[in-house]
Each structure stands twice: as C-alpha cells, then as structure tokens.
C-alpha cells in the first residue's frame, strides 16, 4: 500500500516537472487568452482577476506588478514530520508583496499545517521561511506576528468573553505601547494610549461595518460576524502577510461573494499580501492570482487559476484517478 503511494508520488512529481518545463509558454498563452476568452458561468458571476503572473527565479510565479520587488514570503524546502509521518515535505512557495494567493488541496493534505509552520505554532523540521527577506528561524509565534504575519483560524478562535472592541484592541497590542505601571497607576500615558486604542479599533471595525457592534460580546456574535472580527483582529496587528484559514467556511453564496469583495478591498486598502486556504472553488478561482495545490504534504501544482483548473494532477487529486 505504502509503496503504491510512493510510486504515484514519484510519477506525480515527474509530471510536475513537465508542467514546469512548458510553463512559460502556457502562461503567456493563458495571459493573452484570458482577457478576451469566452466566460464560463462561474466567471461571469464573478470576473476573475486579470493579473498577469510572471515566473521568478525560484520556480514560482508572482503578479507582474510585484516581480521586481522582494517577495513578501519565500518558503524553501519547508517540511515537518510528526513521528514517522511527513506531514509537509519540500514545500517551496513565493508570494508577491500584494498578491492574493490560494493554497488548496483535499482534506488532510497539510494546508493548515503549513499555516502552523509559517506562524511557528509548530517548529519546522526542515527548511527556511523568509518573511520579507528575513529568516524567521528562532522566532516564536508572538515574534512572527510582530514580524508581520497575521492569521485567522479554521475553527474560530476569538477572545469569546471580551467585547468586540477589546478583541481588536488586543490585536493592536503591539502597535500602541503602554507599560504595566502606566496602566496600573493610571499615568497620563495610559489615557493617551487608551484613546488611541479606541480610535484605531473603531476605524478598523469600520472596514467591515462592525463599529456598531463594538460593545457586543465577541462570543455572542453570529457566525459570519465572528469570522469577520477575526480578520479585523488579524489586520490590527499591522501585518505584511495575512493568512486566512477557510474564511468562507459555513457561509452562504451571498456572504461568500461579499467576503470576496472584502478580501480584495483589504489587499488594496492595506497594501498587503493574502494567502488563503479555501475549499470554495468559486472564491479561490475568483480572487486568487496564484494558486498552489497541496496533496499528501507536497505541492503538486502551482499556477494561475486557469492553469490549475485544467491541470490533470489536480483533477486526479480531487476526484481520484479516472480509469
């Protein structure tokens, strides 16, 4: 059984090489075709991004506008083992400074594990993570957050018993300094920073039109609002890269459509990169500029939405082998 799997792995990776070989030609063709191509029903509903993706030296692609700048994130040969299990292996990815990137793959492929590696919830067994050119080796989760990676969680993790505003204020923790003594003894510094906390928190909540809910208890918010609050809280940390773990999970189509607009708007307003894990293909194909597909802990394909949709390995990973 295990030998079979390994066999397929090898076959897959060889095929991946082929894809890479013909990549340049394909992407040029796809880029040209996309502007005028006949629209599929899903694309008609939501016009996909028309960003031209260009290859960079590390076998990855980034949006053309980011090509001459430092990538915000670069993973080299990243991997982690749990006991004998290689949960993630040889994970190479580069994300442009203002790219919306997608990480997709079947359940259990290791997508959330990648997020946990990027945020150092798990210490990587192998490989390097460069955030804006800086190696994050030796950093722990809080340090990575301060360095500029913010995230949301698949199973929502809010500060349930605190108010919506306090949740955002906690996100702002490292943005506004104020020592323990200032707070404990109510020194002037405390009042100045509290004002700043309040103003900034409301400003951020306003991005999602949630300023009216500032005093509500976070745990009592409806599901969709909790997901939005998690994003606001992540944005409060002033990130360079925002990781969204299944942001559309449990949302209906109209909420998802709104979320897509919001993600693009966040990218444009805050001028940051977004990497998202999502099973909703309308969302992924609708807003992601570059997509990486993960299966059994390995990247089996990278490319633009159009390329990924037509990639035989991806189809096989999702649907199984066609006999």
């Amino acid at each position, binding site marked *: 059984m295990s030998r079979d799997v390994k066999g397929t792995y090898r076959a897959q990776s060889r095929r991946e090489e082929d894809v890479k070989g013909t990549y340049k030609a394909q992407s040029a063709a796809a880029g040209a075709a996309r502007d005028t191509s006949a629209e599929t029903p899903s694309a008609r509903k939501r016009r996909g991004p028309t960003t031209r993706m260009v290859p960079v030296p590390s076998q990855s692609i980034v949006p053309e506008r980011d090509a001459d700048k430092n990538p915000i994130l670069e993973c080299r040969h990243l991997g982690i083992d749990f006991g004998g299990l290689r949960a993630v292996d040889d994970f190479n990815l580069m994300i442009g400074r203002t790219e919306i990137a997608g990480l997709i793959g079947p359940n259990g492929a290791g997508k959330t594990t990648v997020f946990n590696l990027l945020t150092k919830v798990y210490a990587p067994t192998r490989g390097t993570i460069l955030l804006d050119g800086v190696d994050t080796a030796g950093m722990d989760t*809080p340090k990575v957050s301060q360095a500029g990676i913010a995230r949301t*969680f698949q199973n929502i993790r809010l*500060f*349930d018993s605190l108010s919506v505003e306090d949740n955002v204020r906690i996100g702002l923790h490292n943005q506004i300094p104020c020592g323990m003594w200032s707070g*404990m003894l109510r020194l002037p510094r405390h009042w100045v920073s509290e004002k700043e906390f309040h103003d900034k928190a409301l400003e951020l909540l306003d991005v999602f039109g949630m300023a009216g809910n500032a005093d509500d208890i976070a745990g009592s918010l409806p599901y969709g609002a909790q997901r939005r609050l998690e994003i606001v809280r992540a944005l409060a940390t002033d990130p360079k890269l925002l990781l969204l773990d299944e942001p559309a999970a449990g949302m209906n189509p109209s909420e998802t459509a709104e979320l897509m607009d919001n993600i693009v708007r966040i990218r444009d307003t805050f001028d940051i990169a977004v990497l998202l894990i999502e099973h909703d293909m309308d969302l992924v194909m609708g807003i992601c500029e570059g997509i990486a597909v993960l299966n059994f802990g390995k990247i089996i394909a990278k490319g633009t939405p159009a390329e990924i949709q037509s990639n035989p390995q991806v189809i096989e990973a999702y649907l199984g082998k066609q006999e």
Partner: protein
Amino acid sequence: MGKLKNLNAATRSNLITYGMVIVLFVVMQSLAAAKAISSSTAGLLVPITAYICLAISLNLVVGISGELSLGHAGFMSVGAFTGVIVASMLAEAIPVGWARLLVSMLVGGVFAGLAGFLVGVPVMRLHGDYLAIVTLAFGEIIKNLLNNLYAGFDGSGLHLSMTNAQALGMDGGKIVINGPQGAVGITKLSNFAMGFLLVLFTLFVVLNLVNSRTGRAIMAVRDNRIAAESVGINTTKYRLIAFVVSAALAGMAGALYAQNFSSIVPKKFDFNTSILILVFVVLGGMGNIRGGIIAAIVLTILPEKLRFIGDFRMLMYAIVLIAVMLVTNNRTIQSKIADLRERLRRRGDDQAALAVDAEGGVVDE
C-alpha cells in the same frame, strides 16, 4: 445619575465596587464606634479586610488570568513573616504605628512578589492541572521552610537560621520568628482603617490593571492562548505579571493579617487557607471582583453568627464549591434554572398585569 449612564460599563461597575466598599467601611466603623456590634464581630473586622484583599488578588490569577493557583496562602505567609520582622526591627526608627505598618506591608508585598516571581518563572511553563498542583507544592514548600525559619535581631543586625534558635548566635536582642512556633511577641499594629485602606489600594491596583492594555493581554491569554500568541502577545510574560502582582498583594494582606495578632504560626497559612480564599473567589463568581468581596465578608461573618453549625462550616464550603461549579457549568442544570426563572418572571408579569388591570388600564409614559 445621567452622567453615570454615559460612562462605559466597566467604569460604572468599578465605581459601584469602590462605593460599596466605602459605604461598608463607614457603616461598620460607625457601628463599632457606637459599640453596636459584639466584640467578637469587631475582632473579625481586620481579618475580613485581609480576606477581601486576598480574594481580590487571587481573583486576578483565577478569574482574570484563568489559572488555578492553590498556594495563595504561601505568598500571604511570606508577606506576614517579612512584615513582622520589618515592623519589629523598625520599632525604634519609626515610632508611629500606622507608618510602621505601612512600611512593613510594603516590604512584605515586595518579598511576596519576589517569591511569586521565583515560583512563577518555572510554574508559568505549565498549564491547567499541572500548574495547580505545582502551586500547591510551592505553598507546602514555603510553609515547610517557614516552619524551619528562626529569625532574631540584636545590636549587630538581623540573624537568620534554618536549624534552631541557638544557631542564630544572638547577642542578647530579640527572637522574632521561632521555627514552628512562628512569629511571637508581635506588636498589634493593624486596625480596621488600615485594612480598609489596603482594600482600596488592592482594588485600585487590580481594577486598573484589568482595564488596561496589560489586563486585556492577560484576559486574551485566558480566553484563547493560541489566538493571543497569534496576535503577538507573549503569553508567559502576561501570565507571570498576573501571578506576581497577585502574590505581592497577598503578601501585603498577610502583613496586615499577622500584625492583628500577638503571635502567628506558619501552619495558619496552609492548604486549607488557600482553599478558603479560593472558595471566596469561586462563590463570588470567578473574575467578579465585587462578588469575591461580598463572599469574603459573608463567609467570614456567617459562621461566627451561626455558631451552632460549627463543625458543619467546612462541609458547607465544600458543598458550596461543588454546587456553584455544577450550577455554572452544567448545561442541563443551567437550562432548568433559566426555565424556572422564566416561569417566575412570567408569573410576576401576570401579577403586574393584573395589578395594572385593577388600576384601570395601562398609562402611556
């Protein structure tokens, strides 16, 4: 009143807490001055203030930081014994009683805070049950060490020993701490007014801390440690802050408590005392500072007033602990209580409606 409504909920709640403490103090002080309360109750006033401070400070760890500490009495004892030593050494330097008490409380607080830091650094690597059992262990260790502590001072200064009184090598002077017999010959410096001031101070520190950037970080760690880390909060640091501040405040209360008696033994600060303080916190509602204060008062006075329950007192505490936990944490019981409340409310509404009908219809406001 209108102005009070404009404040945010937290500030309003804090003001009510301060107000309640001040009113209680004024009432009890006037009653005591008018000799309207029995001497046994009057004798409880200082211990009650100390217990209130302990309940507030433990609430910072259990309610706000969300970790169970079972060694709070240990920090109390560090403050108590340091305070006694300091006060007796300063007997000549500071003749004014209240000033000496103040200094001894401050030093007691600092030493207890230091003990809290030394204990906290290793303990904060642990969570949940492990943390609870290790704080319990530390409480026992502190008690054991104090049981072996001998201290005295003479012309040449302070002498400390861990073996016996002879080993102090005293040249005349006075023995302050005498091993298992504890602190002896304490000058009674504590009084109700100083206790009241300490309660206000403790409240000030804890309430301010909770409603500040630091306090929010502590509560964030309590609510969701992983999420707190993900937004860049150093969880160990903030749990440690709560733990150390709590220990320091407990030390101050210990210094106040000890100097209300002429002698005090280390055994007084054992696991049972830690549990007693925990009962205050749990009964008052974890994280609810005002509730903790009320619980500390009621549970100290009630057994005194209900002498006949005598031996049943501790049994009562046990049942209270279990009942509060079941009521606040079991969904079935909670929904039953909610049902009951709803039914009572409806009945109340019906009666109100009847009353209104009797008066001849509803009048628009």
